[in-house]
């Protein structure tokens, strides 16, 4: 094979901790299943019909019939191999390090998966009578009590199924509370470091989203700008704590106090709760509502788009507005639904949310206990700070301060060499890592946002830091290697501009590409070319 394993300064790059070999040549592409089609090939055969066949023309009117479907014609083994091959290309936290800032790809202990798979839970039907699902109701009830304890906010509903869903639930409760008290409110204050879902939530609830700036030196809310914009037209301020720069908002107690003086609620976007779980309780510093992303902090799988959990936690004052029904424990020790809630904002999801997500979170919290949860927050912060210190010289920080669970590098330092953050991210793929979040938060130009999470070992963090440092060296000494990355993936650098302007999302018959049509051909070609 060609040997780029020796970098230009003559030293071998660091030994990789993972198997997705750096510089092992480009992986062969997996053809589309359509390209494997052979006319007449079948994956199974049906027994002859024992009722007389009727012509399709009699069953379907003209105009509803298609003469050709262009489905791939493949054998069962073709299908199995195709999808197994694709599945092996998956990048997941179960196989590799996944330092995705803000989106938090934590490892979820298998115990929680096992409990979620217990037949007694798995075979429940959501329409069963209450008396036959007492165990499930108890899980939901107790999870809500545990979340109340963790957040310091006594009113909890596990009904919302995503972070943004929890936000909308919370801000609709804020609106209901203001209306109930006869207060007319028009605005929601949102820091410019917020997740984009915050202003979207405010707008969906009928409020104007008003942006509050951040302090360039501390990375926190611009307190003067906040004071200037806070008035009795504000329904709420939405604070992400720690914020999206991975920094704790040290003025949060004063922010809460000033907001409350004008009847403005403080909504805490709890997406980053994993940074402080078990350490501090947001309710104690004065926030009125918080949603927790169960799929970030509490062991629900995050990849693949769900199903997630966005439990909403609120003060006693706001508790009457929680989505109905709520789960209650009766005097005789049984559990049930209570829908007799005159001030409720109503139901926000069917069947009380994603029960399976709640079940995983319940298991996670109980198996770790108070001390274990404390260690989760502590190790998340320790790991992030360790990695930050190893990288801050080579990359520079957007704000140079002790971080919480994640930190933001300022990729602008490499621009003198014609290197942008995107080039660094693409090159990381060659080193066998899923790139971190880039270009977010928007306030940090050329942002590289790294979140190692609490479960990673020092060896893993060191191996990743070594790769990042090697890339910073390459950026200065041989920048073209970064411009052309990734070198190991089946397809190299994509034209993202063309992909956005002229998306081509559908395979059409007769557009077979020139590349090898079968995996065997692709491997043959690779071997002949000396790449493997």
């Amino acid at each position, binding site marked *: 094979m060609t040997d780029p394993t020796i970098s230009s300064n003559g030293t071998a790059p660091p030994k990789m901790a993972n198997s997705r070999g750096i510089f092992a040549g480009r992986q062969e592409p997996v053809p589309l299943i359509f390209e494997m089609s052979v006319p007449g090939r079948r994956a199974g055969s049906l027994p002859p019909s024992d009722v007389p066949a009727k012509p399709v023309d009699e069953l379907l009117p003209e105009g509803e019939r298609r003469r050709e479907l262009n489905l791939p014609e493949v054998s069962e083994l073709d299908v199995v191999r195709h999808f197994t091959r694709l599945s092996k290309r998956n990048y997941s936290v179960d196989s590799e390090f996944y330092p995705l800032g803000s989106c938090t790809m934590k490892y979820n202990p298998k115990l929680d998966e096992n409990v979620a798979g217990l037949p007694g839970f798995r075979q429940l039907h959501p329409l069963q009578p209450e008396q036959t699902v007492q165990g499930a109701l108890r899980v939901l009830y107790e999870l809500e009590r545990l979340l109340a304890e963790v957040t310091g906010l006594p009113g909890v509903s596990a009904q919302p199924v995503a972070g943004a869903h929890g936000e909308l639930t919370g801000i609709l409760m804020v609106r209901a509370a203001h209306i109930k008290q006869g207060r007319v409110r028009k605005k929601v204050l949102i820091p410019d470091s917020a997740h984009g879902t915050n202003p979207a939530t405010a707008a969906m609830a009928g409020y104007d989203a008003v942006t509050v700036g951040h302090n*360039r030196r501390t990375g926190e809310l611009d307190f003067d700008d906040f004071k200037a914009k806070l008035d009795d037209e504000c329904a709420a301020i939405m604070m992400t704590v720690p914020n999206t720069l991975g920094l704790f908002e040290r003025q949060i107690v004063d922010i809460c106090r000033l907001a409350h003086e004008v009847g403005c609620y403080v909504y805490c976007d709890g997406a980053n709760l994993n940074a402080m779980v078990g350490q501090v309780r947001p309710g104690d510093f004065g926030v009125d509502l918080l949603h927790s992303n169960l799929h970030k902090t509490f062991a629900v799988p995050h990849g693949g788009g769900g199903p997630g959990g966005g439990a909403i936690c609120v003060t006693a004052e706001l508790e009457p507005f929680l989505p109905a029904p709520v789960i209650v424990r009766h005097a005789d020790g049984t559990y049930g639904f209570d829908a007799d809630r005159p001030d409720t904002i109503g139901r926000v999801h069917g069947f009380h949310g994603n029960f399976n997500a709640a079940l995983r979170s319940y298991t996670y919290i109980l198996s770790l206990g108070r001390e274990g949860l404390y260690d989760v927050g502590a190790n998340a912060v320790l790991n992030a700070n360790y990695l930050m210190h190893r990288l801050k010289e080579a990359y520079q920080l957007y704000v140079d301060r002790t971080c919480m669970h994640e930190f933001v590098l300022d990729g602008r330092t490499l621009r003198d060499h014609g290197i942008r953050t995107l080039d660094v991210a693409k090159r990381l793929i060659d080193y066998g890592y899923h790139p971190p979040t880039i*270009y977010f938060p*928007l306030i940090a*130009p050329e942002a590289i946002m790294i979140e190692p999470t609490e479960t990673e070992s020092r060896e893993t963090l060191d191996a990743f830091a070594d790769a990042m440092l090697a890339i910073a060296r390459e950026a200065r000494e041989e920048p073209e290697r970064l411009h052309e990355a990734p070198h190991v993936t089946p397809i190299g650098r994509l034209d*993202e*501009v063309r992909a*956005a*302007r002229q998306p081509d999302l559908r395979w059409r018959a007769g557009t077979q590409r020139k590349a090898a049509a079968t995996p065997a051909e692709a491997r043959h070609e690779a071997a002949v070319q000396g790449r493997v």
Partner: protein
Amino acid sequence: MNPTDCKYTKEHEWVRLEGDTAVVGITDYAQDQLGDVVFVELPEAGSTVKQHETFGVVESVKAASDLYAPVSGEVLEANGALQDSPELVNTEPYGGGWMLKVRPSDPSELDSLMDAAAYDEYLKTLQ
């Protein structure tokens, strides 16, 4: 480096008076920060825009950002060329990449905006 015949907003829009018409676009700094622009959404001729309020959206491979009007008035024309060639915003931010032509309802609003020298200074504070 930024044209001296334009006025600038903190949100990185520029406005240039050409007779009775105000031409509006985004600055070179803004296009550089956004990266390759893939889509621009603009208001129709005849609608009105208000100073410091959003009038459209610019979308790049990195992010979608609101556009803020540097001046109030009636939209005379939106740059139709950006429909097929949004890259003009990157290549000619002060020329072919213009976005709106507006008839200002109060030209004195421009006095509250930064001139080129002040905008250059402002950009330095963002480093």
